[in-house]
């Protein structure tokens, strides 16, 4: 099997696992990001600024570590664009990691200005503030070169999607179209981009009404159209492993009452829309989600798949037997155990959690740093999962 046929087969594996349908194979989704750069013998600064090097790192990974899905196909490397433009919004640390300087886009008082006209707000306020006076010195020539760098990056993404799909049969996890795929809730946007963790924490106590107002406006503009489209749509799209992928991170700073007020109503409405159409949604629950387990316990078995990070998979299965698990393999184990120990644990997880569907093996944390995993462990687990049959 190869190419489109292999992609379709793998989509079937993910869908069966998500729906608790028994399948002779349990899929392995490699949550491996920049680790593959080091494993291929390169440094981060090389890979992040040279498309050929990044492609080599992705190909090296897929040639050596069989997997059914891959978190990152080498597309976290847009730095040529920002370097051409003249940005210093990031730095490399000893070539082993890259840090991007956080930049809160708004204050709690300007959130409504932002949502009223996002494009104008970003163009006239955010970008000039970020770049300072040099924003107004960027010549047409600089812009042309930057646009070319951006087009090169876009073409690289397309090329990598085609390579990983056609050559390696890796399916797309979920659609990226904002109208039907990756969805961001207001609270996530506020924590990640608009306010930051600190401002959000202060605002939840000091200005809850302002947050309510913004969340409603965001929901009306961004989430309701998605819900409408789901309701009027045909249901599952089997081109993808999941019909949507959502990242939940901001719940990790919320108390129960804050989650109830700012997050749950909008999240619930969207999840119910998918449930009614028998669609499958994957939620990457960064940190821990089990504090809020009660909210998810009544969803129809097979609708939700949680990619868990810090939660113990056995405790998760006990508390939420209706939700498929993606995860289970820890970077602690991948980094410190022997290959035999890793394989034994992977087998145990498959037997205990996946015999009747409901389990996809993956690493909880994104495997990013050099010492997050030993190559022999990744290889042993990947090969085990490729060959393992019930």
């Amino acid at each position, binding site marked *: 099997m190869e190419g489109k046929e292999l992609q379709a087969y793998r989509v079937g594996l993910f869908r069966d696992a998500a729906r608790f349908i028994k399948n002779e194979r349990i899929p392995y989704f490699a949550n491996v990001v920049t680790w593959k750069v080091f494993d291929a013998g390169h440094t981060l600064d090389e890979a992040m600024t040279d498309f050929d090097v990044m492609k080599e790192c992705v190909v090296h990974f897929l040639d050596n570590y069989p997997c059914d899905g891959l978190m990152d196909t080498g597309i976290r490397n847009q730095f040529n664009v920002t370097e051409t433009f003249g940005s210093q919004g990031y730095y490399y*640390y*000893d070539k*082993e*990691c890259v*840090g991007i300087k956080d930049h809160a886009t708004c204050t709690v008082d300007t959130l409504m200005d932002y949502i009223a006209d996002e494009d104008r707000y970003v163009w006239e306020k955010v970008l000039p503030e970020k770049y300072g006076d040099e924003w107004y010195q960027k010549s047409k020539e600089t812009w042309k070169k930057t646009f070319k760098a951006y087009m090169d990056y876009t073409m690289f993404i397309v090329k990598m999607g085609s390579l990983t799909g056609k050559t390696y049969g890796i399916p797309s996890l979920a659609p990226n179209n904002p109208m039907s795929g990756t969805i961001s809730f207001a609270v996530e946007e506020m924590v990640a981009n608009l306010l930051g*963790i*600190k401002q*959000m*924490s*202060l605002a*939840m*106590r*000091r200005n809850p009404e302002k947050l309510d107002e913004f969340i409603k406006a965001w929901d009306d503009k961004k989430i309701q159209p998605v819900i409408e489209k789901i309701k009027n749509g045909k249901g599952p799209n089997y081109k993808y492993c999941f019909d949507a992928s959502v990242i939940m991170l901001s719940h*990790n*700073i*919320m*108390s*129960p009452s*804050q989650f109830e007020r700012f997050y749950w109503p909008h999240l619930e409405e969207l999840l119910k829309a998918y449930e009614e159409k028998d669609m499958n949604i994957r939620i990457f629950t960064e*940190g821990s989600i089990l*504090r809020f387990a009660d909210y998810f316990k009544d969803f129809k078995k097979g609708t939700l798949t949680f990619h868990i990070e*810090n939660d113990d998979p056995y405790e998760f299965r006990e508390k939420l037997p209706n939700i498929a698990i993606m995860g289970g393999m820890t*970077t*602690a184990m991948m*980094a*410190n155990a022997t290959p035999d120990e890793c394989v034994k644990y992977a087998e145990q997880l498959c037997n205990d959690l996946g015999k009747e569907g409901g389990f996809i093996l993956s690493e909880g*944390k994104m495997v*990013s*740093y*050099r*010492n*997050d995993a030993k190559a022999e462990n990744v290889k042993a687990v990947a090969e085990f999962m490729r060959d393992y049959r019930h």
Partner: protein
Amino acid sequence: MLDSEKLMEAMGDLDEDTVKETLDNVMAEGGSEAQAALAACQKGMDIVGKRFEEGEYFVGDLIYAGELMTDSVEILKDALAGGTGDGQQKTKMLLCTVQADLHDIGKNIVKAMLEANGFDVLDLGIDVAPEKVVEAVKANNIKIVALSGVLTLAIDSMKKTIEALKAAGLDCKVIIGGAPVSEEAMKITGADEWAYSPQKTVDTCRKWAEE
């Protein structure tokens, strides 16, 4: 006249308006009750810590509490004799985010809670190299070190820092905290303790200070 009980409860409830109004009144009346007001705020932070342990409050509330405590000390500082303590010798300790890690929110929460519990915290900031930690421990005769990190690479940096302290022959206790930290990480790094919550850090450091 200060109502310490009411101030303590207001701090525990994270009622910013009541806390600040009370402290402004203390200063308006000459500041003679500043020390008592600070003590009430510190007890209020204990309530915050307890409510966090019980699940009523979470990280966002701790961040807010840290800010409120910092603002409270700022209001009272001119009237506090000899610093922010009650006149007793404070235990000096060191806190930082380890090398190659820039995260500081957790560190700052812990710092606010440690200071509220009477520690004199030397905060070296973020991305702190092992040598800097060794230098600061030597120069300040520090016996308690708290290392923070969020990235998985922080475990390596914590290990290097602890090894550097041992190689320098420094007798100090080390506690590690942050997202990637666990019992296993404690063993790998050679730390004396690990913290799954800010309150655990405070309780452990208190215990060590009394030894």
